């Protein structure tokens, strides 16, 4: 009978995605309670060494698919690897972080194995020893609660929502290689271009400072960037300023941009349209700085400041710098 959990660990260029470790931690909590096995799957080329750091999140086993065929991502190749791992492990659940790789890969494997999938899960609830998955819908205006009726189900978890466990240096998982030869790869990645400027990935950032039309023009990004640098934050933007050509779409937060859940989201000169809220309303703390006291963003704000962002931001940046240097 299908038992336990298989977690797909995403790596690019030997870098493990933080959100994958969050998924692994969540799976650990479930399996410790139910006493079921937990297996992590790592796919790529020359990645065996990464199994040590994965091991610290306490899977019982790390399955490694390591060959030149997986040096670059291909949907079909990786789907073959994940399918082989599912057949090897026979889990009840397959977990992954909800990233652009997962959006591409996980539903394909689910369809291949005729198994259901709930993506972008923001909460997991237990009922009779099984998971119910909570999936935000209608741009976060409602939450759908899903139950599975299947021996195998796929779930992808929203990054930054599930806490990653403290790594346990002493834990040693069993490491096992799994040999997979992709059967048929008709499309694959040939090149990767890093986006210019983006220093910290939005969907994984702990703190985000976002600018909207209220920042007046692209010449004012440095005012926000200084705050980002002080706080180690990522820069974000509303659609209005992306459409105006002030910044690339990569930075857009919202329904037609990225969904983010940082610890702290600072909205500067953003009115708080429903499509913007769709992308950031699950942030833990929201700060709104806006000159219009009637701006809808204040309804979602943990802390609100009515005022001119150009008067407040430099002083706030200064305050933060001072605070962080004093510790």
């Amino acid at each position, binding site marked *: 009978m299908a038992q336990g959990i298989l977690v797909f660990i995403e790596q690019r260029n030997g870098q493990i995605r933080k959100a994958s470790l969050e998924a692994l931690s969540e799976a650990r909590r479930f399996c410790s309670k139910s006493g079921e096995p937990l297996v992590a799957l790592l796919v790529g080329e020359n990645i065996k060494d990464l199994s040590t750091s994965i091991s610290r999140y306490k899977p019982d086993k790390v399955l490694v698919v390591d060959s030149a065929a997986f040096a670059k991502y291909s949907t079909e190749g990786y789907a073959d690897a994940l399918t082989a791992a599912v057949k090897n492990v026979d889990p009840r659940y397959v977990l992954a972080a909800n990233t652009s790789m997962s959006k591409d890969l*996980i539903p394909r494997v689910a369809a291949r194995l005729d198994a259901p999938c709930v993506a972008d899960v923001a909460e997991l609830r237990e009922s009779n020893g099984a998971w119910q998955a909570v999936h*935000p819908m*209608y741009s976060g205006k409602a939450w759908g609660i899903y139950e599975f009726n299947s021996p195998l*189900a796929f779930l992808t978890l929203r990054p930054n929502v599930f806490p990653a466990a403290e790594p346990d240096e002493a834990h040693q998982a069993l490491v096992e290689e799994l040999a997979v030869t992709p059967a048929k790869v008709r499309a694959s990645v040939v090149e990767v271009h890093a986006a210019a400027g983006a220093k910290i990935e939005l969907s994984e950032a702990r703190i985000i400072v976002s600018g909207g039309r209220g920042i007046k023009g692209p010449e004012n990004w440095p005012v926000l960037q200084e705050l980002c640098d002080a706080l180690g934050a990522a820069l974000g933007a509303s659609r209005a300023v992306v459409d105006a050509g002030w910044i690339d779409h990569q930075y857009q937060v919202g329904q037609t941009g990225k969904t983010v859940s940082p610890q702290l989201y600072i909205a500067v000169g953003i009115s708080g349209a429903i499509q913007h809220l769709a992308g950031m309303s699950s942030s833990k703390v929201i700060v709104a700085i806006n000159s219009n006291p009637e701006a809808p963003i204040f309804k979602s704000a943990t802390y609100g400041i009515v005022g001119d962002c150009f008067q407040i931001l430099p002083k706030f940046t200064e305050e933060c710098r001072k605070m962080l240097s004093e510790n």
Partner: protein
Amino acid sequence: MKIAVCVKSVPDTEAKINIAPDQVGIDRANVRFVTSPYDEFAIEEALRLKEKLGGETTVFSLGGDEVTEVLRDTLARGVDSAVHIKDAEFDDADPLTTAKVLAAAIKDGGFDLVFCGQQGVGGDHNQVPSMLAELLDMPQSTLVVKLEVADGKFKAEREIEGAHELVEGSLPAVISAQKGLNEPRYPSIKGVMAARRKEISVKDAAALGLSGQLSPDKRKVKRIQLTMPPARPQGKMIDGEPEVQAKTLAKLLREEAKII
């Protein structure tokens, strides 16, 4: 070049969402249904390819009566023909069910390309295109922001975290559109007139050879409840001169929220 486009009819993103008395669906009264925004990029890309390479375009949509208007709008933009898949057996289809239904409708059409949006807004699943590619046994590229098609091959640029990925593959293929792929056109008056004369072919489960196979009782995942998200606690407004506001905010973030 034969091109299929999958289009979903969804509640207008501005719509206020009320939960239906059954606590599982939304109250559809007074909700305006529109083409899912990402599907507009899919439609536009199909039209541009047809204009460049010749061929024909067909739009597929699974849904109830709310789909008709969206199909008319798609035809008005210049898509050649429309298939409306409609059957009570497919009500509230989950992504896997949707993909199976669309695959059954598309598989024997001899299509070189199948376009989808990267996400049907509302459901916000991001699943159907990849599932459809698997069921049609085609390669895929999703979240595509740039596409070139020539000589039975495609080159797609897809958006990933902090980078763009270049994917090359062979046709036939499934492509899902991300914002940035193109600027969708609006239907012209002439297009709207022409669309009135185009026929929408309606297919049910029997016509697709799926009778009884994908009905709600056979589904492997079920939404048991739709709820409002937990309300955010009442926020605090910070008053005073800019200097005082800045100081207070920093202090609250450190001492109360414990973030910086």
